[in-house]
């Protein structure tokens, strides 16, 4: 039987891919688009670090710097981490893991990818069209985002399209999990990756529209001067922040839940044990989704919010750490007395736990009101969110990549090179981002393109870390690309996994299963 990689259907050549409604092809389309934009985001990050290698102007002026971190943030967040594992591995494996042939709305799925790609193209276009690249920071706070002459409207519209893509994917996944589970695949037999995708899908459906309306309102404000977000006409700038973070905080749970789901898959497989605490992990995904929708004010502690709001948001922020803690406990318990095989996916999963814990714990630090006054908008925050988004979500992503690579492409990669790449990545990552906690604690503000000489040492260390990180990334991708072209053939179940995807050939045939399995 031909694999989905070979079976083309109605179209030829590239059209067989970009017009395909096969969830596996769509997953790979996302993977390719996302890794492309990720590379762009990495380059922007390297340029930022290069500017910051020494005080004073190094390679660019202040305005360019503002645009650089704006696009770095937008590309990484909206085009890489938010679609993240849902759009790529979720699309590929959700149907297979529940025993289905595809998602519930395959054509809507393709539309999602087209919206995503169009948004990405418009974002890149906004760098070059008249007005110049947006310089508001990825958070577009008013009033600056209303007043600035740069291409904010085009960029916001692009993000709107990407948000719409996310909503449709969430809608698709919820319906799929409710209606297309194979006979016998009860809710509590679902793989934990599916649970995480389900919880994420709900956040996508309910939170993203708020971002949608906020972006549209800023665009309308820019064109028509309506006044509802413009302080000069009586609008309250804090309302923009509320609306923005009502989405953007749950968004970070969109980013982290699927990687947590993958870790829940990788650890049992490589410890050769059933996961410890299946139900707590499943429920904790839902708990994170729910409680995570109630804490957005912790981004606004110094903005002028009422004291009452600050107390309540701070309290809830502390509570939301609990379900994450439950997961960490269960993962570590699974490893205990397991028969551990230290494959590359496990290395990524373990470093996820370590790095995300640092990120999460520093999140609690940020959530304490008295401390927040000092570290808000400093490098401490920058360190915090890179440990969670990169050390957490992105490392989880790379772990998923190495875990499912043989299944998706039918080839094996060079294990030693993969492990070496991981090591360099890990060292580079910590060298780059750990100093930021120190710098932030010492008072260095974020988003400044210049700084006082006293901060120079750690800035230098951080920049060197960025180069080590970059080398690790290049090595990792080279290894994988080489494997796609020349890798050894992989068989059905190289890791001994127990979920449904390991029962079908590598790569899978177009309809996944010869006949729908009975569980």
């Amino acid at each position, binding site marked *: 039987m031909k694999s989905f990689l070979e079976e083309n259907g109605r179209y030829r050549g590239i059209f067989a891919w970009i017009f395909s409604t096969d969830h596996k092809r769509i997953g790979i389309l996302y993977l390719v688009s996302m890794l492309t934009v990720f590379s762009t985001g990495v380059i922007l990050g390297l340029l930022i670090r290069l500017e910051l290698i020494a005080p004073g102007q190094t390679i660019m002026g202040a305005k360019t710097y503002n645009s650089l971190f704006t696009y770095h943030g937008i590309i990484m967040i909206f085009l890489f981490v938010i679609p993240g594992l849902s759009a790529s591995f979720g699309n590929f494996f959700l149907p297979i893991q529940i025993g289905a042939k595809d998602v519930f709305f395959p054509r809507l799925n393709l539309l999602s990818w087209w919206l995503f790609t169009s948004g990405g193209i418009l974002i890149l276009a906004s760098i070059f069209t008249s007005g110049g690249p947006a310089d508001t920071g990825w958070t577009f706070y008013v009033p600056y985002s209303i007043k600035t002459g740069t291409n904010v409207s085009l960029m916001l519209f692009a993000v709107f399209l990407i948000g719409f893509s996310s909503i449709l994917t969430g809608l698709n996944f919820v319906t799929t999990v409710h209606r297309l589970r194979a006979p016998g695949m009860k809710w509590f037999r679902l793989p934990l990756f599916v649970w995480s995708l389900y919880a994420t899908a709900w956040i996508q459906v309910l939170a993203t529209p708020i971002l949608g309306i906020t972006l549209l309102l800023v665009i309308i404000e820019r064109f028509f001067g309506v006044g509802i977000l413009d302080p000069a006409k009586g609008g309250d700038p804090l309302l923009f922040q509320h609306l923005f973070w009502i989405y953007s905080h749950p968004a970070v749970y969109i980013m982290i839940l699927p990687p947590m789901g993958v870790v829940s898959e990788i650890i049992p497989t490589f410890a050769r044990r059933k996961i410890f605490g299946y139900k707590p992990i499943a429920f904790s995904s839902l708990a994170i989704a729910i409680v995570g929708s*109630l804490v957005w004010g912790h981004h606004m502690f110094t903005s002028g*919010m*009422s004291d009452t709001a600050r107390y309540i948001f701070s309290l809830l922020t502390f509570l939301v750490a609990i379900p994450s803690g439950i997961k960490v406990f269960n993962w570590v318990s699974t490893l205990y007395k397991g028969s551990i095989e230290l494959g590359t996916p496990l290395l990524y999963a373990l470093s996820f736990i370590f790095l995300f814990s640092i990120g999460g714990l520093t999140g609690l630090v940020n959530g304490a009101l008295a401390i927040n006054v000092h570290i808000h908008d400093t490098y401490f925050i920058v360190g915090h969110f890179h440990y969670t988004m990169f050390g957490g979500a992105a490392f989880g992503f790379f772990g998923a990549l190495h875990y499912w690579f043989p299944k998706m492409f039918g080839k094996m990669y060079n294990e030693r090179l993969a492990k070496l790449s991981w090591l360099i990545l890990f060292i580079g990552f910590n060298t780059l981002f750990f100093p930021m906690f120190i710098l932030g604690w010492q008072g260095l503000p974020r988003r400044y393109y210049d700084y006082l000489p006293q901060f120079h040492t750690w800035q230098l260390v951080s920049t060197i870390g960025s180069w080590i990180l970059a080398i690790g990334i290049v090595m990792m991708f080279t290894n994988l690309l080489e494997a796609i072209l020349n890798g050894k053939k992989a068989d059905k179940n190289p890791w001994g996994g127990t979920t449904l995807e390991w029962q079908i050939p590598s790569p899978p045939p177009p309809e996944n299963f010869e006949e729908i399995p009975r569980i």
Partner: protein
Amino acid sequence: MNALSYRTYIVVWLGLVAFTILTVIAAGIDIGRLNVIVPLLIAAIKTILVLSFFMHLKYESWNLKIMLGVTVVILTIIIGFTFLDISFR
């Protein structure tokens, strides 16, 4: 699948029209703070009528009803928590 009778729909429609008239009348009477709550309450009742009968929610599975409930709760919390800031400044 359940097709409701035309009569049921017409009765619901009459209810909606009646509540519309009610809300207009209530707006003309000064009842202090209730002037904010009463129209919202009436709008909520009209919405429940539309959801339950025109949109068939009364006859749908519990899954769907719970999903709607979750949506409404989230929206309420979002607005409510924002007022934690606004009202206490």
